[in-house]
């Protein structure tokens, strides 16, 4: 389980009241009864809490796919957050 996956499932439990037992890597958002509005809300929450853009995630995406997207967003953001180049 990646950090991104833990972050994602944490939001699903805490902010969308999804029981932990329903959360597996192969679960889709549709399986959880979530639609595009829910995913939009999720993207807002992730951006506000972590400054990350959760993009290209659809209702039919699995949680693993969504976590991979989040990891990609984190990697893209990492250089800016890291130490600056040595002159």
């Amino acid at each position, binding site marked *: 389980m990646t950090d991104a996956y833990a972050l994602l499932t944490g939001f699903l439990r805490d*902010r*969308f*009241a999804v029981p932990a037992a329903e959360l597996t890597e192969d679960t889709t958002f549709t399986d959880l*009864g979530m639609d595009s*509005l829910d995913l*939009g*809300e999720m993207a*807002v929450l992730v*951006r*506000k809490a972590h400054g990350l853009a959760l993009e290209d995630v659809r209702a039919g995406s699995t949680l693993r796919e969504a976590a991979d997207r989040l990891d990609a967003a984190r990697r893209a953001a990492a250089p800016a957050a890291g130490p600056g180049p040595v002159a």
Partner: protein
Amino acid sequence: MRGRERDVAVTGLGLVTPCGTGTAATWRGLCSGVPTAVADERLSGALVDICCPVGEFGAVEALGHRVVLRTDRFTQMALVAAREALADAALSPAEWDPSRVGVVIGVSTGSTESWAPHFASLAAGRPEDVSPFLLPRTVPNMAAAEIAIRFGAQGPGFAVSTACAAGATAIGVARDLVRSGTCDVVVAGGSEAPAVPIVATCFAQMGALSRRTDDPAGACRPFAAGRDGFVLGEGAGMLILERPEHATARGATLHARLTGYGASSDAHHITAPHPQGRGAEAAIRAALADAGLAPRDIGHVNAHGTGTVLNDLAEARALRRVFGTPPPVTAVKSIVGHALGGAGAIEAACTVLSLRHGLVPPTANHDEPDPDCDLDVVTAAPRPVRATSALSNAFGFGGQNAVLVFETP
């Protein structure tokens, strides 16, 4: 002479009020005569910080987490009250024709406070932080929509907005949907959660709220000398209105009949009532005519009775002109506060309960009557009143008035 075929049956009641969740808890609280007003931390920073709060009302248990997360408080209270009203009517969505079930809900200010953090996001240059749920959770028609979704009501559904008369207007408009034959059943009522700093401050700035913040329980004093304004409340009231033949065919119990509805506009001022209660009088007379009743037939008036100087005087003048000597009057806002768009529906339900129990709950804080109002206000304890018909008044800012007449079954 009108025929009873124009009547509409009231077969279910549901209430969420500061007295408690449910019709029984609310009736007990009203009959106790004890005001529910307190200083409320939610109003911290507002010009007036007292209100009559609805406590824990079982939203999660009744509706589930997901619905609670996506809805605002006024919708949650409306759903809980609608659920009680449908259960009280012994109506099962599995058994009705969904295309003939409507939902009409009165709402006034809606969800003003929910917008605040999102305006802040815009102001901070972060429009992407605005929630996609903001609009669907705050638009005033969403209480009616969520009720329709939850219970599968596929007939006409909408919100009505007549400020503090909205709950009564909704019931009147719903009555017309039943009387016209459009619907067999309508879930009708009002809901409001205005105990938020911006709404309290707005009403305070208008001079409408009582400033007795050091004595919350004594603040709302309808028709009494020294009254200085209303106290904010919150809550929802729901009635199940049903075509009498439909109710009879399924063996339903009738709580009452809704026989009259009258509406009018003062056409006078944006907030002040017409000083002589011209619009109120017109609505009362229209409701009586609609019911085919004379003033002497009415045994009880559940007044709008906000506790503002102007409303109570105008309402009393209208009642005295219509009735000469008006029947016993009560003003339950002295106990549950003013739930704005919810108030007219909460009070309509109270009026039905008064007819059923033969009892008029007391008006609190009426220790010194205002001689200019000169009404027979029920005080101190519930008064037995053997009425077969009763009037419920609701008057809104903008001078929009709605009056309902209920009769025993």
